[in-house]
């Protein structure tokens, strides 16, 4: 994968994740920071975190493993998890 493509994918999946997160938290995208913890800082319980990832999975048309999803703690964790799954699944020709 070319460097430029990787950066674009990173931006796209991160953008989708953070936009959906802002929507669920009913807040402005600009207030979301990578280091924020979903539970402690954003007040999301486990169900809401899974709801977020379910929305991401739908939007990006990828499968996300629930057990791994439950281990996510921060906004950056969520974005990295989504990106890695996206690249894995797209890299293997899945859509």
């Amino acid at each position: 994968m070319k460097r430029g493509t990787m950066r674009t994918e990173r931006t796209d999946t991160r953008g989708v994740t953070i936009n959906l997160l802002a929507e669920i938290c009913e807040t402005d995208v600009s207030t979301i920071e990578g280091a924020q913890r979903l539970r402690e800082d954003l007040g999301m319980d486990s169900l809401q975190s899974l709801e977020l990832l379910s929305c991401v999975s739908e939007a990006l048309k990828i499968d996300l493993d629930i057990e791994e999803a439950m281990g996510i703690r921060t906004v950056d964790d969520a974005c990295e998890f989504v990106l890695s799954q996206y690249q894995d699944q797209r890299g293997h020709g899945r859509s």
Partner: protein
Amino acid sequence: MAAPDLTAEQAEPEVVDLLLPEVARFMARDVDGAAIDREGLIPPAVREAAGRLGLFGMTIPGAYGGAGLSLGAASRVVAEMARVDRSVAIMVGLHCGLGTRGLVELGNPALKSRWLPRLASGATIASFAATEANAGSDLMAIRTTGRATEHGLRIEGEKSYVTNGGFAGLFTVLARTPGLGGARAHSLVCIPADTPGIVLGREEDKLGIRGSSTVTVTFDGAVVPLDHVLGTPGKGLEHAYEILTWGRTLMSAGCVGTARGALDAARAHVAARRQFGRAVGEFGATRAHVAWMAARTHAMQAMVSSVAELHAAGSSIEIESAMAKVFCSDGAFEVCDRSLQLHGALGFLEETGVARMLRDCRITRIFEGANDVLLVRVGAGVLGGKGTFDVRCVPELSDVAERLEGAERTLRHEARAMAERLGVEAIRHQVALQRLARALIALRAAAAVLERASGESLPTARYTAELLLEEARSWLDRLWWADRDEAAAREMTDRMAAP
């Protein structure tokens, strides 16, 4: 507690053993449940008597004039009160749980010194305000906001269904506090009721717990010093979830008490009532009802004890307190319903008191986390491997324990299969999640029963655990049809014309 004096020499269970008869005497002597229900008011004299007995201080540390009882000990006291009257039990339980827990655990020393002694004596009653008109189970949706100003934190917003609100002297309020710990931050704030800018709505006219005070509280620019924020500013939701585990456990204990009251009433009635030449209680169908009610009450008690022991051991009780809340609130309602049924037409009349118990416990399936939502949450936890438990029991019950472990393995297998098949999409399959949760709760309750069984309680424990195992298997069977049921429901409701 104030009256029996907790001393270092006495172990807590012994103190509670001494206290419970006093609580029973207080409830019998000072509390007229029917009058409280009829008039929709707990008389101030009842509050004062409860205060003299030390009930409001039972979970407040001794350094501040309370008895510093554990969650388990306080649960036994709340259950004893609820056996007689749920309005009074909820007034005290809310004060000891959601009302004061935040201050006890998270308040700064000055705030604790100022408020806890009077909260312990009952001179001030505590309340908790989180729910809003558009924010029930979804606490993230709250709109009440606290903004830091040069004078302190200025609160604007309206809280609904505030228990104890009509006579509370101190509110613990969950508010958005942008600027305190981040733009998205929420904080828990202690707000004295005499703060200018607080307006109380009228008392709500309710189906049950009619004596319990339930009002809307409007904060119209109420200002409190910044040191009234409890715990870490900005961590309010996290703190609220933690406090809710206490509240739910005490509320579950209240359900145990209500169930005991309904069971006692049913037993007395079926022993006295004669039909077809025999006491109604001698018929097999009646015995089956009574045995079921006794078994369910026994399991509810075991579940509450189990949660309290986990808490005492320092473990998180987030998922366990939710499971207990669902199990106990549903259980109490069904025990009351069966008790009413056994009373025949007489049960439908208010004079037996069973109708009141049924009305009183209906709300427990809704507040402090609606059961429907908690079930989805517990079900999601099962998918993530949460809610595991050990099965320990005496050798006489090892056959039941083995079957229980087998059922748990099946449950985990089904959960793994669902997670693998659906990934995070599983979160949208709410009916399946609820059935998984129901199965887990039944198994968890059975395990709690087996763990506590010994001597004379062995036959009751065996019967109770067998019933719960059957329930769990039935929910696992119905798991097969969950997606079909949810799809059919979607189709049907989509076709329905707008009301």
